[in-house]
């Protein structure tokens, strides 16, 4: 059973069709890659899946405990509540807030106390905040950030900011994690460490992951299946070795072979 089923998804901005008739599916527990040349529509597809854009047509269905839930047209915060979390291409942490608050904000949807408790700090407030703090610290521990929990996010080194962004996404308790270009700006050493973390959190948190990635060696190494977008259309899908030799993919990335012309 697929966790996420995308059917004939299309998004047009005026005359420009950024995503055209894309159908894809992601099974539970899979690690799927989404690649394509610059401007192929990868991030637009991400924004459609996470509710930032409303699809022009087509459907996005998420399997929530056996029930199919339509995500198209939901607001981003409702998509997150259904169990889809994302990280951004250009890290979007809450820069002027502490590491701890970054994670706690992502846990807000678990909070049950209401406005009166928030204003008057009743017992209910203290009990829930204690649990929240404990969970947040456990999550920060996993990413070796707990000793920096009171630092401002903007003061962390780049690699740790990337880690904090993953921790924050995981704090929303997702089934499916969408990661936009996680290795951007990393050196080979950091990318190797990232590869380990991705496979580790996948096991540890029982996650399904969809990855947009430009680093081909990373994609080929860790992804089980790959979708290739070009000019908003799906031009290929399959196992890494199939994609590597796919003629259309090579054309999209390197241009048409002149000797064949």
């Amino acid at each position, binding site marked *: 059973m697929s966790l996420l089923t995308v059917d004939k998804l299309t998004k047009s901005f005026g005359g420009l069709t950024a995503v055209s008739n894309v159908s894809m599916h992601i099974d539970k527990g899979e690690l799927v890659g989404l690649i394509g040349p610059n401007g192929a529509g990868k991030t637009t597809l991400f924004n459609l899946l996470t509710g930032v854009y409303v699809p022009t047509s087509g459907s996005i269905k998420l399997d929530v405990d056996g029930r199919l839930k339509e995500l198209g047209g939901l*607001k981003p915060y409702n998509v997150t*509540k259904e169990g889809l979390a994302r990280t951004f291409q250009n890290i979007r942490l*809450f820069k002027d807030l502490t590491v701890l608050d970054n994670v706690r904000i*992502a846990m807000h949807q678990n909070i049950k*106390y209401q406005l009166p408790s928030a204003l008057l*700090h009743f017992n209910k407030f203290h009990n829930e905040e204690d649990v929240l703090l404990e969970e947040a610290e456990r999550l920060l521990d996993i990413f070796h950030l707990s000793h920096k929990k009171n630092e401002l996010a903007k003061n962390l080194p780049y690699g740790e900011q990337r880690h904090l962004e993953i921790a924050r996404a995981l704090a*929303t308790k997702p089934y499916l994690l969408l990661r936009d270009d996680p290795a951007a700006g990393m050196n080979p050493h950091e990318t190797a460490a990232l590869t380990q973390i991705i496979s580790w959190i996948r096991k540890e948190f029982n996650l399904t992951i969809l990855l947009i990635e430009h680093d081909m060696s990373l994609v080929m190494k860790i992804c089980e299946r790959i979708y290739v977008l070009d000019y908003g259309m799906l031009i290929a899908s399959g196992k890494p070795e199939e994609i590597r030799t796919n003629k259309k993919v090579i054309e999209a990335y390197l241009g048409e072979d002149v000797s064949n012309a």
Partner: protein
Amino acid sequence: MRALTKKNLLILLSILLTFAIAQGLITVGIINSFYEITIATICINIILAASLNLVTGFTGQFSLGHAGFMSIGAYVCALITMRMNSTAGFLLGVLAGAIAATLVGILVGIPTLRLRGDYLAIATLGMAEIIRVLFLNMDITNGAAGLNGIPRFANWTWLFFFTAAAIILINNFLKSSHGRACISIREDEIAAESMGINTTKYKVMAFAIGAFFAGAAGALYASYFYFLKPDLFGFLKSIDILVIVVLGGMGSLTGSVIAAAALAILTTFLQSFTAIRMIVYAALLVLVMIFRPQGIMGTKEINDLFKFRKKIRE
């Protein structure tokens, strides 16, 4: 209940101490009745600035309509105490004024908080003007002549404890998950939405709480100064409140308290120099903004300063 923690006792103690010192100075006569008006102004301005700071400094929604909410609280409280001339009537008036302002805040907030930045500022400005013009043309508010002889119940003691309560409630809110949700909107609205925060809901919530306390401050104003007219709540009043917030630091309640006190004292002091009063006032604001654009406190609170000291000692 965890109300009796060491920290809360310390807060209660410092509130009572502040009150005792000020009360002592009044009793001895160092603070005479002329300066008492300054203290009342400080209290009212603290509530106004703290509540606007919640909307503009913490939630990042630029509002220019705070005087509008203040005027609703003022007129509602005045009309109630004029018919119910008792302390109970006064308290009911403050509560009713604050709630009326909240309701208007929610009503106005839901459509306008979809706008961002400049557009929101213009929409809230328009809202405040509409409220002012309504009060100017209604019979019950006595139009441009205003309301005279409002029973005077608010004294310095009431003002002090209302101010302390407002600060504590707003601070509590900011330290809650709801408050963090509001702050995350200021930091990055798109990221906040992807983390599951219903941004419209929390913007309206911050706006409504801000309106509530602005309404309460207006009610206290009406009861203390016992005279109201629509002109008092024009565009310039909103700007005055905004100046306190920006000067103290967008995102610092401590800053709002300090700036409200500093500006009120400065205004009182400058009253002896009528000719150059506004020049000095404006020049000081310009200087502070040049040398400290983040405001007196930035986003720091008073307890951050203590933490900083502890860090150095370690």
